[in-house]
């Protein structure tokens, strides 16, 4: 049923600016694929190109091997959920959900049966005769999803569907969306700027920045092995340190971090490096020679962990998390400590002249 979506070197230009700069993606049948990126990175533009609301300036998009560049939006058989739900305000919930079937001129009985089925699936049957204005945000979201699914689309597109819900409802809805997606096995392309949401729902994530894809991978890949400093900084928190590497004759390289600590790392690296370390991959000890050493400037107790802000000897600020299950003591502001990196979790990027991100 579901299509395999291939996006081939797709480009979108608005006057002089290029919003989407040659994107290459391949999405599997039944996959929950998320396009994640900061606002203005071109993710919504790409989604709208798939939906047919934006023209494709270069490249092509294929559904099941069939080029759809010139297929008008209303013939693409796509279900779309909009950021603001876009519920038709002049129709009851039932009529909203039935709209797509009316467009397909479905027989009356089948229409009613399928609409009821969709309402049931989204658990909104009791609101079928209400007006949209009588429904809460979460309920409207369910209507939007029911309306998109009732037409049995080949692909489900979701454009930041949870961004106008409050935090608690967002978690509830994203779980509901994930379950329904699994249940129906429908290929889903989901656009969001919320990295936590992306990690929670996706099978795979494409991280976009400035019109390009920075990395495609599973949530674990993207979090544990970010391909670029941008991805490392955008997904979760990463401390960036400067380093200088020198390859060793016997294999591996010697890396000197922040001109304070020397370690041996696998792989051949040479020259200036950016070292990415997440707050939970750093450990604190009493100050020692030959380690990254600094002073605690802020300690924030957050229940399951304590977040420390540490100023290193060179003036660089870093964040370290210590989990309360691992430690009894809370360190004091002003205490001098050494920071031990977890070398296995450390990510290295060659510094291509951009410098170390803040």
């Amino acid at each position, binding site marked *: 049923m579901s299509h395999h979506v291939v996006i081939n070197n797709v480009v979108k230009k608005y006057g002089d600016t290029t919003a989407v700069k040659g994107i290459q993606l391949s999405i599997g049948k039944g996959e929950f694929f998320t396009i994640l990126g900061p606002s203005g990175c071109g993710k919504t533009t790409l989604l709208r190109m798939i939906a047919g609301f934006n023209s494709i300036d270069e490249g092509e998009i294929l559904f099941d091997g069939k080029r759809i560049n010139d297929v008008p939006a209303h013939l693409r058989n796509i279900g779309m959920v909009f950021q603001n739900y*876009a519920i038709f305000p002049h129709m009851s919930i039932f009529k909203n959900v039935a709209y797509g079937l009316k467009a397909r001129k479905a027989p009356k009985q089948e229409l009613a049966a399928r609409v009821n089925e969709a309402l049931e699936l989204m658990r909104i049957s009791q609101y079928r005769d209400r007006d949209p204005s009588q429904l809460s945000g979460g309920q409207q979201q369910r209507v939007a999803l029911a309306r998109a699914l009732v*037409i049995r689309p080949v692909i489900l597109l979701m454009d930041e569907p949870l961004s106008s819900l409050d935090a608690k409802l967002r978690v509830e809805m994203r779980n509901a969306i994930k379950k329904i997606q699994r249940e129906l096995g429908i290929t889903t392309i989901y656009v969001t700027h919320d990295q936590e949401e992306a990690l929670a729902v996706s099978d795979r994530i494409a991280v976009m920045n400035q019109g390009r894809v920075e990395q495609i991978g599973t949530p674990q890949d993207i979090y544990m092995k970010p391909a670029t400093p941008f991805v490392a900084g955008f997904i979760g928190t990463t401390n960036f340190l400067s380093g200088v590497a020198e390859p060793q004759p016997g294999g591996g390289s010697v890396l000197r971090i922040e001109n304070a600590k020397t370690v041996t790392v696998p792989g051949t690296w040479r020259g200036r490096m950016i070292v990415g370390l997440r707050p939970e991959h750093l450990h604190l000890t009493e100050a020692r020679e030959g380690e990254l050493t600094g002073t605690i400037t802020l300690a924030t107790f957050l229940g399951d962990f304590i977040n420390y802000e540490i100023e290193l000897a060179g003036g660089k600020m870093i964040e370290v998390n210590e989990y309360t299950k691992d430690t009894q003591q809370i360190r004091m502001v002003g205490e001098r400590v050494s920071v031990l990196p977890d070398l296995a979790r450390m990510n290295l990027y060659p510094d291509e002249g951009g410098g170390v991100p803040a």
Partner: protein
Amino acid sequence: MNRLKLRAPSFWTMTVIVLTALVILFLVYPFASLFLKSFFHPNTGDVSLVNYKKFFDTPYYFNTLKRSLLVSTVTTVLAVLLGVPIAYITSRYNVWGKPVINVMIILSMLSPPFIGAYSWILLLGRNGFITNLMEKIGITMPAIYGFYGMVLVFTLKLFPYVYLYVSGALGSIDSSLEEAAESLGMNKFRRMLTVTFPVIMPTISAAALVVFMTSMADFGTPLLIGEGYKVLPVVVYEEYMSDIGGDTIIASTLSTIIVLCAVVVLFLQKAYVSRRNYRMSFLSWPGARSSLPSMCWTGRAGCPSAPTSCQPCTIPSPRRAGASSASRMKTVLGRRCTPIATRRRAAGLRRSA
């Protein structure tokens, strides 16, 4: 006893009292004296409906009501049929010279309606330019005077209201509604009929109301172009101003009937809109509250492609509609200047220009 001590009324209480007094003095009092006259017997001075009986029994008077309603209804239908498609086309497609079209439409709204009537007489009247031209090549033009002329002038004069209201609404309608309809498989035409127009229906009805009331109350146009086809305001004028045989009591009866018609239509429109009061995120309500067509216009010009973020207006609030009906009421007495609503709109245009 202390609790009952009188305090000086607060500033807002005073404001309310003063405003109420002003309304009574300048609005209620003159109209009341006019309307009340129609409820007394002209000879005995008793309270009676004899004037209304006379109105309905005398075809000369009663026909004017029928004519007024017919002219206004036909005008409203035609203005909507003309204004809505033009607004749809200019707001949905890149029409060449769109700014020029907009300016011309606003300009045509700035002049009093009878000037439009007069220019049509110059073109198509008995000695009109086109009439004479056609006569030379042997074609006799149909007469512009009477019902058709009135409808022609009113329609062309008043469809800009529909155009401006509807362009504003189309500009501020959430484009994702139309996109949702599109992605659900509706083609452009059915989408327009099932989503776009129903959503802006309250705006269309408000525009229709303005057109209906303006054409109903207008005096200059029917006086110039109506000739034998007399509508209510013309007869009111004649009854008041005629040196011989004038009947101010029947004039006030006719005035009351005009106002009653206006009120009935106003309430019908309000009832219609209140059933379709979409309290949804797709319209910006602060803007809608101050919905002057001029703002629609700047909204269209300023942000044609950003529908959700800056949308100054769409659905006129009932209060707005009420204001226009009040200005309509002031025109009952024949001596019709530019109605207040138009003047205010014009001021808004100048401000925004």
